[in-house]
């Protein structure tokens, strides 16, 4: 045989992918392509970008294909199987093998008037050009269909400046991908874009009247007067050529193929949307690409078969995140609904809740790439955590598909990283991952980090060591100054990262007053002035109120001090009182009065113990089973002044009703009938996390001893600015390992941890009293070295609600409404 002739019908997305693949795998084929459209293949998935000004050329997928004859604008009209030839209006093309890649056509329901001028479908560049021309100078459009395609079309009409109405037959939007709750949340997002939605509604008749259109519906009395109508209600495979020449087609359309993409005629293959793979049509590009590769492999002599398809979808509407992946239904589901933020998420799980089967996300699709890649494996993290931070570490197996557009697994990507890809661009070139819809790009970034594109633990450019390593060095060498440490173990002069970190280590290891000698220069401004710097250059003052318990006399002192120095006062979230707006030179005077009244520093400025909150407990509460107030005060006094990698917070509740919110704290204590439960590793803040139970029903002595060790182990080994929650998570073996170390003393370090804490408790002294007693330290509390008594003239206040605020504050409150809803779990 001199040459093998291959005919391809259709130059769409899948046809083009097939051409690329066959040219690469077996260039000996002589290929003829019959293409109905006037232009070579283009990116239909990004079709809507055409309305954003992306040109037809930019959407083009045309590539150099040696030996391929593409006949644009020449549709196939018939297949003569006996003669093995495809016919067009211009000629006849003999073939040895034939590939059908005719895609599908928009489905237009049999509605009277659907052929009128002003009625469109949404499939080709020509369709969009016609819609655009019609929309010129008009106001209103109707989209029939509230699925993926319909929403995309509706958004396009909106961008063309039309008032847009969606008419959907199903009871909710995207009914094929979302459940009713998800559809409801989506609807609110769509309506917020200014698009009207009518569900459970179908068009019954279209008529033209004075240049406009009228669509009647199945709903009594509901009709739409409009300028144009777009049908986006689904697609039907273009199987006519096959049907007419006797090749088997499916009941609901589509050319039936086996997993080799072979039709009932062994010389004819079908790929893409026209194929009914084992009876199933796929309306997405990814399975089509896989089919293209399968057929190219077969024609090159291979044995490839279709491995099944990932039907995950993500809506590309600007501003509305919707995604669905894996199974729609399953034995178990966990859902999350935040109506105020418009977030709905649902994960479908196996009956033992161990395997993720699928799910849907509306309003926040950030976790989509991670979740999609996790289908078939364990759930990668708590749903709420996934939604609050997209960056949960992915412990994905190598086989997990990361890019489903191009069927690239984590293994492929890790391989490419090891071969030298160091950024997303390189990964795209090497693996094709990320070149389709782009939704996997965040995952690629994570995998780069995971795959040795080094994530450094060094503190900063001056120390290659981690904080934990520096801690050990200081402890072992007994170094007491930063300059000695950097001279021996680091480079350069230090910076705002390593200096406070080292200052904190020196303080944790009992280095005396934090403003002594050289240490003073290391401190962040908050620690330097023992107060919190505010946005206008003033400071806040927070005296310690252990356990939140305070006498009326002390309350009066706070009131008097605030009044006399013109300070704004506020009850904090930590059960104490904050006084804001203090000038540097007033800080010592303020503290003189506070210290005289028996107050101490509250360390609100330090990476140190903040507060131990309490509930009233047995003292007053009819439910209390333990004295939570006394315990909170004892703990707060024991750990006050303790410097740590990040701030430390605690709370004690008198019974399981948990009014002190102890489980949201770094260490939380809850009273039980038999003693105390200890929880560790909780926090609020940016990524809230509940603390985990470390010990149950222990007596006070065991409780305190365990907390001592927990804190000292954390201080010795955590990273800079790593809170206890992240630290516990980072321990290999997690909380169980932690228990082994600090309860069972597996590492034999408990004596040392106990000694460190004993030394802290013994050497604690109030920092503010230390300043007031030292004229040299007091000297620094001035606004200006050359004018010690002059306040900073740039600081101005204004009065709002009877108190002083930095001037200009009230303006800022115009920045828009605040959403008050809190996530509500179902």
């Amino acid at each position, binding site marked *: 045989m001199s040459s093998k002739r291959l005919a391809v019908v259709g130059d769409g997305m899948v046809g083009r992918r097939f051409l690329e693949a066959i040219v690469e795998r077996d260039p000996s084929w002589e290929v003829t392509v019959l293409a109905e459209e006037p232009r070579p293949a283009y990116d239909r998935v990004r079709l809507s970008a055409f309305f954003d000004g992306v040109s037809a050329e930019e959407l083009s997928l045309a590539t150099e294909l040696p030996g391929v004859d593409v006949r644009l604008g020449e549709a196939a009209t018939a297949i003569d199987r006996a003669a093995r030839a495809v016919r067009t209006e211009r000629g006849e093309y003999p073939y040895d093998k034939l590939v059908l890649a005719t895609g599908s056509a928009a489905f237009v329901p049999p509605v009277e008037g659907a052929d009128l001028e002003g009625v469109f479908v949404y499939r080709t560049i020509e369709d969009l050009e016609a819609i655009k021309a019609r929309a010129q100078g008009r106001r209103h459009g109707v989209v029939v269909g509230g699925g993926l395609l319909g929403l995309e079309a509706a958004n396009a009409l909106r961008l063309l400046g039309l008032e847009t109405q969606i008419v959907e037959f199903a009871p909710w939007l995207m009914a094929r991908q979302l459940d009713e709750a998800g559809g409801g949340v989506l609807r609110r997002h769509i309506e917020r874009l200014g698009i009207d939605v009518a569900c459970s509604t179908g068009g019954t008749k279209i008529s033209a009247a004075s240049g406009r259109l009228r669509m009647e519906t199945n709903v009594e009395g509901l009709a739409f007067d409009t300028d144009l109508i777009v049908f986006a209600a689904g697609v039907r495979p273009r199987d006519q050529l096959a049907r007419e020449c006797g090749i088997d087609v499916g009941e609901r359309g589509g050319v039936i193929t086996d997993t080799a993409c072979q039709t009932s005629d062994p010389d004819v293959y079908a790929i893409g949307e026209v194929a009914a793979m084992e009876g199933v049509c796929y309306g997405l590009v990814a399975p089509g690409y896989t089919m293209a590769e399968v057929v190219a492999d077969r024609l090159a002599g291979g044995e490839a078969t279709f491995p099944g398809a990932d039907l995950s979808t993500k809506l590309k509407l600007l501003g509305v995140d919707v995604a669905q992946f894996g199974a729609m239904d399953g034995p178990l589901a966990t859902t999350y609904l935040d109506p105020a933020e418009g977030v709905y998420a649902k994960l479908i799980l196996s009956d033992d809740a161990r395997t993720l089967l699928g799910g849907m996300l509306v309003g926040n699709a950030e976790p989509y790439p991670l979740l999609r890649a996790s289908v078939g494996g364990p759930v990668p993290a708590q749903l709420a955590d996934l939604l609050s931070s997209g960056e949960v570490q992915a412990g994905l197996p190598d086989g997990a598909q990361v890019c489903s557009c191009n069927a690239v697994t984590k293994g492929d990507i890790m391989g490419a990283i090891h071969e030298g890809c160091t950024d997303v661009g390189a990964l795209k070139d090497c693996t094709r991952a990320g070149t389709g819809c782009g939704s996997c790009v965040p995952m690629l970034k994570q995998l780069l980090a995971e795959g040795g594109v080094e994530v450094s633990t060094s503190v900063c450019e*001056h120390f290659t060591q981690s904080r934990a390593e520096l801690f050990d060095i200081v402890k072992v060498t007994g170094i007491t100054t930063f300059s000695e440490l950097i001279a021996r173990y680091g480079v350069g*002069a230090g*910076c*705002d990262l390593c200096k406070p970190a080292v200052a904190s280590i020196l303080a944790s290891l009992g280095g005396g007053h934090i403003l002594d000698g050289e240490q003073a*220069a290391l401190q962040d401004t908050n620690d330097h002035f023992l107060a919190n710097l505010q946005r206008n250059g003033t400071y806040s003052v927070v005296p310690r109120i252990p356990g939140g318990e305070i006498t009326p006399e002390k309350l009066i002192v706070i009131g008097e001090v605030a009044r006399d120095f013109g300070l704004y006062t506020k009850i904090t979230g930590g059960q104490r009182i904050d006084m804001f707006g203090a000038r540097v030179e007033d800080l010592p005077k303020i503290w003189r009065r506070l210290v005289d009244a028996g107050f101490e520093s509250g360390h609100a400025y330090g990476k140190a113990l903040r507060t131990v909150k309490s509930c009233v407990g047995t003292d007053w509460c009819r439910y209390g089973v333990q004295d939570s107030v006394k315990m909170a005060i004892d703990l707060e006094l024991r750990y006050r002044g303790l410097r740590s990698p990040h701030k430390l917070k605690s709370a004690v509740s008198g019974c399981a009703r948990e009014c002190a919110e102890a489980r949201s704290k770094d260490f939380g204590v809850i009273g039980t009938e038999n003693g105390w439960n200890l929880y560790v590793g909780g926090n609020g803040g940016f990524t809230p996390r509940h603390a985990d139970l470390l010990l149950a029903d222990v007596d006070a002595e065991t409780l305190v001893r365990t907390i001592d060790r927990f804190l000292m182990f954390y201080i010795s080994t955590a990273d800079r600015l790593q809170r206890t929650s992240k630290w516990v998570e980072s321990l290999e073996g997690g909380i169980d390992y932690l228990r082994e170390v600090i309860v069972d003393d597996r590492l034999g370090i408990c004596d040392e941890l106990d000694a460190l804490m004993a030394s802290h408790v013994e050497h604690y002294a109030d920092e503010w009293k230390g300043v007031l007693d030292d004229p040299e330290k007091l000297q620094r509390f001035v606004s200006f070295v*050359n004018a010690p008594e002059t306040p900073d*003239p740039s*600081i101005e206040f204004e009065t709002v609600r009877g108190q002083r605020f930095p001037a200009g504050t009230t303006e800022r409150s115009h920045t828009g409404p605040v959403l008050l809803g809190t996530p509500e779990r179902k």
Partner: protein
Amino acid sequence: MEAICAFDRLVPGRGAAALLADGTQIAVFRLPDDSLFALSNRDPFTGAHVMSRGIVGDRGGEPTVASPLLKQVFSLKTGRCLDDEDTALEVFAVEVVDGEVRVGADVRAAVLWPEPPPRRHSRTRE
């Protein structure tokens, strides 16, 4: 030049603010090697006069101070913000005469230098 204080009054590795006769606020830094730098005390990102309270150090050998508010880092020599090419602090003349620190009300170096962009740091901020 205006005298502001005795040299010994300045803490090594730390800054202090001075108020000049014309109302200008200057941040004066004494480094551990006793070198001196004087820059505007006004943090350009917030408008607060707090630069003297920042932590000094170096980035790639260039002496720096970090704003105590939002932690952007500035070169002590040129005033350039190393985290934002479009921002800089004014730099003032400073000298020690007979143990007294004097600063010049004249801006010695100002605004932006056409230097190559600083190398990128991605760091966690508090």
